[in-house]
């Protein structure tokens, strides 16, 4: 009789044991076992590696952002210079013995007015020029009329008059020294320079 009791008790303990071992599998691995020194080191290295890679990725992203920003700035700078160059290089042309603005000239002046609106610090000198034909006295006056004509149009477009200066060079400063229609057309111009 007493022997049966002990067998039953032992069975209970085994059963409980089984129960416990089954449920143990769900618990974190580290809990029941104490990890060894090697395993610790390996885990630490792996973690550091991950962290380093993460930092590297972050760093790369940062660099990329900086470079992109630089590129944006450079492009903006180039655009700005291009706009200035266009502003300076795009002359307003005139017909012979004429200071009236053609529709093309008006278009060019509108572009210049836009630039001036975007660059409110800038002051500008409008030069009036003529081709070599005709007499020096009259051409100096005609250059003056051309510069004034361009200035008046810009003022009409809203540019502050105090930002615009004029000067006539008559036929004294041609941009093309040829003696043909092509040169003459180029030389009959109002030219803007930024002060």
């Amino acid at each position: 009789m007493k022997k049966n009791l002990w067998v039953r008790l032992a069975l209970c303990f085994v059963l409980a044991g089984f129960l416990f071992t089954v449920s143990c599998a769900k618990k974190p691995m580290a809990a029941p076992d104490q990890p060894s020194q090697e395993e610790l080191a390996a885990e630490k290295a792996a973690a550091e590696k991950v962290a380093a890679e993460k930092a590297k990725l972050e760093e790369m992203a940062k660099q990329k952002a900086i470079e992109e920003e630089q590129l944006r700035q450079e492009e903006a700078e180039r655009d700005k210079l291009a706009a200035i160059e266009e502003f300076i290089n795009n002359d307003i042309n005139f017909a012979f013995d004429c200071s009236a603005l053609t529709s093309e000239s008006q278009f060019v002046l509108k572009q210049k007015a836009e630039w001036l609106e975007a660059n409110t610090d800038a002051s500008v000198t409008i030069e009036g020029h003529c081709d070599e034909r005709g007499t020096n006295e009259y051409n100096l006056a005609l250059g003056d009329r051309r510069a004034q004509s361009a200035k008046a149009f810009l003022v009409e477009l809203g540019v502050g008059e105090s930002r615009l200066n004029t000067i006539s060079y008559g036929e004294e400063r041609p941009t093309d020294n040829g003696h043909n229609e092509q040169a003459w057309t180029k030389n009959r111009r109002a030219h803007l320079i930024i002060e």
Partner: protein
Amino acid sequence: MLISRIKKSLFVLIVFIAASSGRCLGDYDYIDITNPFLRKIPMAISSFSAVNRGNDEVDQAVKNRELLRKSLEFTSYFSMIHNKILTSGNGSKAAPPGLNFKKWTASGVELLITGNVEIIDKSIKLKLRLYDTVNKKMLLGKSYKTTINNSRKVIHRFCSEVIYCITGSRGVFYSKIAFLSTSTGKKEIYISDFDGYNPKRFTYSNSITLFPAWSSDGKWIAYTSFAKGNPDIFVKSLDKRQSYLINFKGTNSTPAWVPGKFELAASLSYSGDPEIYLLTGTGKINKRLTRSRDSDLSPTWSPDGTKMAFVSKRAGTPQIYIKNIASGKTARLTFMGKYNTQPEWSPKGDKIAYSAIENGEINIYVIDSAGKYPPVRLTHSAGNNESPSWSPDGSLIVFSSTRGGASRIYVMTAFGTDQRQLLSMPGEQTNPKWSPRF
């Protein structure tokens, strides 16, 4: 009987006075003033004799005769007869005794000049005589003593006497010509003698220099220069000791002195477009003279200072107008062509020279200042001819021409004859302005 004797003695008396003082009378009708250059008076200048026959003297004799010949030829009144046999002088005699007028007139000569040269130490003595070979009379007898360096001035003094005798006017010998040249690479003002001799640099603006203008006493030159970065008018005394600046905002150009005054008219664009103003020589505005749309510029004064001709684009193309200062009335002068500029009023008052563009060429025209007759064209098919300026006696016109390629200074008579180059310098020469007589 008595009356005719009195007449005779009077005549003799007058001739005697004429011979001894060497003054010419209006009796001698040498010049056709309607066109004195149509028929040039045949003149001969015999070789000057060297009194002491020294080498220096012979050298000076040759030089001075040549200068005299060139200077008189410059006036275009004379055609020089170069007949070797006739012009080889006596060589040794101090004064030509009993001139054989016949041998001269036989060669067509009507006026004869003889001279002799004597050098004493550093000074030179020149004896010069002008003869009317047809009427067998001496018209001028002059004796000059000066330093050898100064002989050019003395020759010109004699030339002046000759011209006064022949035309009643003193001629151009005491005058200079201002002009622009790019010899240094930039336009600067240079001044030469009336015959182009000895050009000297006047401005050192190292910039664009334009439009030199002489005051009527010859003591001031006004001009436009970009020396200060803007076209301003500089007023400078000829000795450069005094200067004034006319620098209104905008274009300050084409100064023109009022005759007899320290006042000038100029084109200023500070009001918004080029208009003509009257200013003091120091740069103070006295009066506004034009008030029109578009350009007004290039004033030029009548010799009595009562009228001003100028260029205006008020009618749509550059044309020449005349304003009467007292009445304020302005009338248009030019109606031919679409581009008439650079007007210059003759010192005689009767004509205005100007340049006009026609068929792509610039040429010089002359129109009577009353505008009654059509303008006369003086230059033809010879490049661009512009910027005319009258000699102080109104007999010659100096201008610039590109007929030879580069722009050079040329001279012609008031009728357009005898067009010849005045001088040549490196670069291009333009915008000549003849001074008044000094």
